[in-house]
């Protein structure tokens, strides 16, 4: 066939800039992994022992201590309240902030930055750590749990809902503005109808997550089934631990089925 020249044409998969970017990521990741492997302390004796310990663990869990069920049930109800109230409180707090964070709604960059900072702080600190702080304030109990769930969720709900607001089409909003509608009316009839599906989807998603999270808050005294779990763990009542783990598993499965059902109905 025709040869355009006698220089052999070479083909490389990426442009030099792409190659450099990717190589840096690969190399840095490799170094990070090697560095972590070298310093993380692993005690071999513990590791050899692990299968035996695990078998022992499960042997002690079975059969479950069914006499303990009334306690499990009452703390489970409390867990449900913590998750649900915490989610509701989080939404109430996050909604105004998400409007502050949305670029198409708030022009002032400082206000936006403040909202973003609250979101990042809320998301960065784990719910268990938030629970420590609220137990220090309100004392042990479900109230601290509700607040730690709420504060942890503000960032999640606010960020996602703020993004949904930013994706709202400007057309209807311009049309309402052109009719001379007040800002509150624009919010209610321009933004809300567009963002409502995202709102419910985010709320459901977070509620699902919060059911899981509220089950462990009791480990630091913030109410729910975790309190009973902590007591059973400290007393080495493994048959009670087993019952509670099985219960939590069942609740999580049911929650997931319920949320996916509701999601398919409303969205």
């Amino acid at each position, binding site marked *: 066939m025709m040869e355009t020249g006698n220089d052999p044409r070479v083909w490389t998969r990426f442009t030099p800039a*792409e190659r450099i*970017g*990717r190589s840096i*990521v690969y190399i840095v*990741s490799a170094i*990070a*992994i090697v*560095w*972590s*492997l070298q*310093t*993380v*302390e*692993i*005690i071999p004796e*513990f*590791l050899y*022992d*692990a299968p035996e*310990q*695990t078998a022992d*663990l499960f042997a002690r869990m079975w059969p479950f201590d069914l006499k303990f069920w009334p306690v499990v049930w009452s703390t489970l109800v*409390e867990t449900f*309240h913590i998750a*649900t*109230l915490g989610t*509701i409180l989080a939404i109430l707090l996050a909604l105004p902030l998400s409007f502050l964070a949305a670029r198409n709604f708030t022009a002032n960059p400082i206000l936006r930055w403040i909202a973003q900072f609250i979101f*990042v*702080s809320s*998301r*960065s*600190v*784990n719910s*268990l*750590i938030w629970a*420590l*702080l609220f137990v*220090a*304030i*309100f*004392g042990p*109990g*479900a*109230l601290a749990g*509700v607040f730690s769930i709420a504060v942890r969720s503000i960032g999640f709900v606010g960020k996602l809902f703020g993004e949904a607001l930013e994706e709202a089409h400007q057309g209807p909003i311009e049309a309402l503005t052109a009719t001379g509608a007040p800002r509150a009316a624009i919010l209610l009839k321009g933004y809300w109808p567009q963002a409502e599906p995202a709102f419910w989807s985010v709320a459901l998603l977070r509620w699902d997550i919060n059911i*899981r*999270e509220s*089950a*462990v808050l009791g*480990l*630091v005294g913030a109410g729910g089934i975790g309190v009973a*779990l902590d007591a059973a*763990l400290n007393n080495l009542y493994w048959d009670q631990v087993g019952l509670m*783990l099985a219960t*939590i*598993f069942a609740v*999580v*499965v049911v929650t997931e089925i319920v949320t996916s059902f509701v999601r398919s109905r409303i969205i």
Partner: protein
Amino acid sequence: MSASTLARAAFPPDWTKRFVWIGLAIYTVYAISTLDIDGARIARGMANAARLFDRMFPPNLQPDKLELIKDGMIESIQIAILATFVGVLLSLPMGLAAARNLAPPWVSWTARAIIAVLRSFHPVIVAILFVKAVGFGALAGILALIVSTMGFVSKLFAEVVEEISAKQVEAVRATGASFFAVLIFGVFPQVMARFVGLTVYQFDSNLRNSTMVGIVGGGGIGAPLFTAYQRFDYDVVLTILLIIIGLIMIAEFVSARIRRIFQ
């Protein structure tokens, strides 16, 4: 209003929606009533909060404390790195096995069942079990976070794989490519960017969780944090919290950059 009942209803009332809202309101009032909130408790809480903040500020920056915090933070970061690496490596085959468009039904349902079990427990509970199995320390934390990484990444990766274009895969299959060559040329190019996105997202998430597993003995900054809290050294607690927030912010910035490189 009688006028509106006479006129044609422009907006038919949405009774399901109203029912949901009313039900939610009643539930909220009831659930709040179970929390035993009263004036005295709120007042006590406010006083406690004031004392808490008073003790928190200024954050404690003494060198010996910082040294301790540094060691804990580094261990947390290492836990996150190793858990992400191993977890993501295992999620790749797991996610492919769970994708219904690639794997035969019995494989994908088995994989889905495993993923569901992995996902259902909070990392802290998993960490408690691993502390019992392999002893106190970073290893228990790493194993716990590997479990949560696999639960999250395999599930979403399977969803990504199920969304790929079958036509592009068919075209590669039509060239006579073997199963693995079809994966490499037909499937991976379509999903790799999303997979990298999931990986860096999970790294952020693991970093957050690695600060927590220490509370139950899984290594990292959690242990010094919990100790400081129990000793009422709230100024040290604040220092640790600020460092965690700063670290997460940096990590989120870096992840956004990495995602762009692999778009």
